[in-house]
């Protein structure tokens, strides 16, 4: 596998130095692996801190800035960050109104953020946590760790970030974040496996001419493998499984997300099919976002996330945001 890297060990640090060079609006602490908005801490404003394994760019560092995250903590590739990072970030961005940890539901992220929350509280920072678990590919049962957290993370970070920017108190920002998560569901499809820098070869075998339905964002295998389908067939499948669990009674936000290696030409074509299915099902789309936002290294494929919104959530979605990867209204 040819990769544009130096050595696997320095991939994350190298990327952080590059993020710093590209975005003067951010403060990048390469050594401690924390990315902060430059004007942090903002007095009397709740600060959102998120993080997770690297390899999902622009998630999360690309969403740091006014109207969204106050800080991001990138871990090693596909590996959650360590508690020291979150504690450092929380202390740096707390403007006195407390910190909300946005955590994707993966065992590692949950455990490390839990440990960090305890330590940050010891240092006098009020911490609330919201768990994102939107992926319908995983059946929730007594025996599983629950649904995975994927595309809805973007909706949670944007909308809760807007509430924080308006000056809402911590309990309210947390409640809005939970409401967004509860209103959102995702489903992902892989057309090729991804390769981590440490392994250097695909993390799973996906023969030419086959696709993996219900894939996660770490190249972990999905729930079913089939012969390659058309964009129209994939949209039918993905939207239907999402709507089986989310039966919206009001308009939705739509994220048509690329996994990293699928060109926008294909994503836009897929978006047309997704809109067709939603129209057939009578689901109005309030806003659409198409692009690579929650990626999985060099995986080809896409995911669909729907989030049912009311007037308040839609207003917060439309509120100004100024980050490297998401920017409008400012």
């Amino acid at each position: 596998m040819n990769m544009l890297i130096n050595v696997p060990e320095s991939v994350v640090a190298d990327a952080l130095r590059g993020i710093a060079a590209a975005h003067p609006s951010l403060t990048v602490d390469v050594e401690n692996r924390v990315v902060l908005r430059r004007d942090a801490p903002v007095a009397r404003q709740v600060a959102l801190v998120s993080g997770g394994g690297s390899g999902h760019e622009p998630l999360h560092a690309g969403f740091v800035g006014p109207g969204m995250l106050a800080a991001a903590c990138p871990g090693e590739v596909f590996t959650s960050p360590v508690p020291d990072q979150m504690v450092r970030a929380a202390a740096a961005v707390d403007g006195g109104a407390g910190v909300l940890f946005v955590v994707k539901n993966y065992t590692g992220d949950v455990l490390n953020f839990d440990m960090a929350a305890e330590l940050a509280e010891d240092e006098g920072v009020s911490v609330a946590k919201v768990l994102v678990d939107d992926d319908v590919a995983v059946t929730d049962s007594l025996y599983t760790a629950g649904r995975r957290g994927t595309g809805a993370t973007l909706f949670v970070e944007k909308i809760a970030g807007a509430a924080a920017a308006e000056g809402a108190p911590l309990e309210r920002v947390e409640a809005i974040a939970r409401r967004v998560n509860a209103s959102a569901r995702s489903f992902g499809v892989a057309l090729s496996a991804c390769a981590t820098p440490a392994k250097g070869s695909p993390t799973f075998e996906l023969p030419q001419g086959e696709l993996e339905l219900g894939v996660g964002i770490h190249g972990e295998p999905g729930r079913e493998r089939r012969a390659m389908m058309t964009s129209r067939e994939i949209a039918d499948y993905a939207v239907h499984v999402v709507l089986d669990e989310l039966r919206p009674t009001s308009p939705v936000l739509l994220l048509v997300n690329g996994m990293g290696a699928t060109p926008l030409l294909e994503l836009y074509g897929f978006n047309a099919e997704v809109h067709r299915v939603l129209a057939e099902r009578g689901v109005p789309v309030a806003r659409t976002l198409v692009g690579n936002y929650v990626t999985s290294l060099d995986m080809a494929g896409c995911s669909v996330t729907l989030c049912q919104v009311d007037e308040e959530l839609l207003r917060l979605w439309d509120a100004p945001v100024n980050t490297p990867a998401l920017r409008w209204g400012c």
Partner: protein
Amino acid sequence: MLDAAFMSRWMTATAAAVGREETRLTDLDSAIGDADHGANLRRGFTAVSATLDKETPDTPGAVLALAGRQLISTVGGASGPLYGTLLRRTGKALGDAAEVTREQLAEALGAGVAAVGQLGGAAAGDKTMLDALLPAVEALGRSFAAAAEAAEAGALATVPLRARKGRASYLGERSVGHQDPGATSAALLVGALVEAAA
């Protein structure tokens, strides 16, 4: 009797074993997880042995507690908090005695394993590191070699199991037929006790 130097040798031997088996751990993890277990543990235990090279605490309990804290600070993922908690709680259970018996270590390790079960919400048969650690604690009362064998057998016994915890659990039935990477690395940790005792 086991002293601080013994625990230090145990950690160093674990670091060496994890280094030797890094590729195997990562391959096992790529089958049912996300292909980072080997690299993560190597990073963590390399940091542990570097820390112990600089400062060796003077009690067995303090060595393990320091190693545990170091793992939590460097590994990430699920294995950082889980292995970190295992060693930290085992170290705490040993108290500040300058020397401990193998039986005392077995008892303390039992407390560490219980803490891991609580943190991860896992039990025996869930296809996790506990499937190697629980039989190892049991056997450690007899000898280091017995503990190593029991851990190895426990790791092998995860192959037919269906994962109920961690990332592999997302695969459901598809996790059957693969050896659990966490149980495999746990067997390396226990196996390193034999080297430390040699």
